[in-house]
């Protein structure tokens, strides 16, 4: 098999995104969890880049790694997490059930992926490569999807109003 930079980058990013995700859920300190989540977002944005979705990759860095992680860190700092003993979980039927269910989900997913898709994957077509570009997105957003686009502004408005109402309640 010839060496391709793209294949190498894909496996590198995929492995590091899995490792960073595992590191994120196993850290004790919530701050280091948040930092590993940033690393995870970065690797995912690299994967978007390999799919030629430049615009989405840049958004992933700007919005998720920048803005949303700031929010996460603020929430962590807002909560008083000094008392570590509250976070120690004991083994319970809940935990065992969730473990069993996630093993089942893993089995189903890997079964479907292995038997359903083996040999069916093809190289990405040129049209698919254009999907994540700002030009394509803008062309679709302002013609066919203009109504959902306007609705998105209502969603943002609702987010502002919700945050203000909740925070005001806390002040008074």
């Amino acid at each position, binding site marked *: 098999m010839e060496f391709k930079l793209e294949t190498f*980058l894909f496996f590198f990013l995929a492995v590091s995104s899995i490792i960073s995700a595992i590191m994120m859920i196993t850290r004790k300190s919530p701050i280091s969890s948040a930092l590993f989540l940033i690393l995870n977002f970065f690797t995912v*944005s*690299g994967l978007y*880049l*390999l799919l*030629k979705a*430049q*615009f989405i*990759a*840049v*958004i992933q860095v*700007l*919005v998720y790694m*920048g*803005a*949303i992680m*700031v*929010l996460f860190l*603020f*929430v962590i*700092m*807002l*909560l*008083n*997490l*000094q008392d570590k003993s509250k976070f120690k979980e004991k083994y319970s039927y809940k935990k065992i059930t969730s473990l069993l269910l996630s093993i089942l989900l893993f089995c189903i997913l890997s079964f479907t992926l292995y038997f359903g898709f083996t040999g069916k994957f093809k190289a990405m077509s040129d049209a698919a490569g254009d999907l994540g570009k*700002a*030009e394509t*997105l*803008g*062309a679709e*957003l*302002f*013609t066919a999807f*203009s109504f959902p*686009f*306007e609705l*998105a*502004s*209502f969603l*943002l*408005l609702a*987010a*502002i*109003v919700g*945050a*203000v109402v909740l*925070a*005001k309640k*806390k*002040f008074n």
Partner: protein
Amino acid sequence: MNTEALILFFIVGLAMVGGGIIISTILAPKSKNPVKEETYECGIPTQGASWLQYKIGYYLFAIIFLIFDVEIIFMVPWAVVMKDYGFTAFVEIIIFLMIVALGLIYAYKKKVLRWD
């Protein structure tokens, strides 16, 4: 803009940051002692834990920033295709901006942007 350039940009960006850290750990002289490892607080001995509870005002500012961040992100594809779609796209983005601006006016009227 092609994807390869952006991938190269990411890699070079990582290499600049990572390379700086790695080279400085290799080259810099090290002297370790317990006093040096202490948290620095204006030279006097530190007091209490560093984990403070922040004011909720920070969170509000952060969430309002996030919303306008997303708004600007929506404006990027508009700016790219603006010349092709002309007036229709212009009206659409104006409606979008006005609806989001209502949120800013609401936050302003509720005096959450005031720092006290």
